[in-house]
């Protein structure tokens, strides 16, 4: 979460998003302002209530003047900004990014517990991915079903780190983290111990509720059966960050 200025300092700015005049507090990001105004910008790693990660790059937007691209999640609104969210270029780039994700690990929707409720699946539809042009990588990742209630299937992980952040910032357990780099990057529990043996995991399941794909799921779910509910987050986040 971006640090918010104290009330006395906050100014209100006006900017344009897709030629529409909108107002914003200057400590708000472009993505937040767009959402408030019902303007949809695709995103994957961003979750309201968690710190900004800035890694999926799907929320990149373009400045009308100099055509510079910035990430909407990590760029604050400023007076006179003219933001375009869906230029041809951006559509093309977003589509490629989603294709890269699909090709990176096993994202076969038909047999996934999150089929029909998956953010990656929805992004494919939203970004016009009707097929993947780059070759599939076909690397095998581990499935860890050692936890009593939950399972992590790294084959379906997109490395958005929502689990890492919610566990650290909201639950305060910091069970999840990242290891490895590049294509070998993966989320881990407790210094890469099986999840079921984790001493820090409280079993709260917040990570499972926030996972955008079929990577973190409840045991006993079959294709298309995994439902999630992240309604707790805004409230807990507010309580956590209250003065």
């Amino acid at each position, binding site marked *: 979460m971006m640090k918010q200025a104290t009330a006395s300092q906050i100014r209100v700015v006006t900017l344009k998003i897709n030629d529409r005049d909108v107002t914003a507090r200057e400590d708000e990001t472009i993505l937040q302002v767009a959402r408030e105004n019902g303007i949809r910008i695709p995103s994957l790693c961003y979750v309201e209530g968690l710190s900004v990660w800035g890694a999926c790059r799907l929320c990149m937007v373009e400045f009308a003047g100099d055509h510079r691209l910035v990430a909407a999640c990590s760029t604050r609104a400023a007076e006179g900004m003219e933001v375009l969210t869906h230029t041809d270029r951006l559509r093309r780039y977003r589509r490629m990014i989603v294709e890269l994700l*699909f090709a990176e690990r*096993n994202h*076969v*929707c*038909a*047999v*996934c517990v999150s*089929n*029909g409720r998956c953010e990656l*699946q929805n992004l*494919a*539809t939203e970004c*016009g991915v*009707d*097929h*993947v*042009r780059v*070759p*599939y990588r*076909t*690397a*095998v990742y581990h499935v860890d079903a050692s936890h009593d209630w939950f399972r992590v299937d790294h*084959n379906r992980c997109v490395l958005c780190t929502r689990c890492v952040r919610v566990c650290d910032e909201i639950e305060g357990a910091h069970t999840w983290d990242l290891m490895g780099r590049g294509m070998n990057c993966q989320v881990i529990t407790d210094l890469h111990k099986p999840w079921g043996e984790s001493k820090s995991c409280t079993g709260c399941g917040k990570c499972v509720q926030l996972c955008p794909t079929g990577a973190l799921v409840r045991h006993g779910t079959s294709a298309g059966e995994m439902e999630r509910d992240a309604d707790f987050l805004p409230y807990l986040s507010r309580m956590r960050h209250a003065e």
Partner: protein
Amino acid sequence: MSTPRRRITMATTWLDGCSGCHMSLLDIDERLVALARDVDIVYSPLVDAKQLPDSVDVGLIEGSVSTEEDLHKARLFRQHCRFLISLGDCAVCGNVPGMRNFFPLDAVLDRAYRENVQRNPQVPTEGVPRLLELVQPVHGVVDVDLFVPGCPPPADAIWHVLSELIAGRTPDPLQVTRFGK
């Protein structure tokens, strides 16, 4: 009455798939009658014709390219069809058949024909086409003109795509279907 339009010729085939996409095509139900007014199905597992005509307007491919025969058929369809459609997730992205790519081919064959077989375990070699090392979506081996994802694509989606094509428009399948639908 207006003069009848030239009838559109259509061919379909299934490669490595479950035939569900063809079932879904049949599931357009009474609209099959409407389809038959405009379209001649000149080659398909659903009809008797044994020979793919030299020139076909629309080709529909279900299934992924997993064997040498699949590869041959995909190339044949590309050669003879003016407009080629990947129908369903197997054709579009490899889908379930493509999941064997995560393992070496020999390990897959061993698993299927030796480890899990009690009587006379052996890998069949006669009367079956050889498996390719890597399962590919159709566009991995030939150019494809339109992608209709879905597992299978719903009958309504198939009907939408076909009727748009018949009307001379290019459909946008993502309006009516998606991966895994």
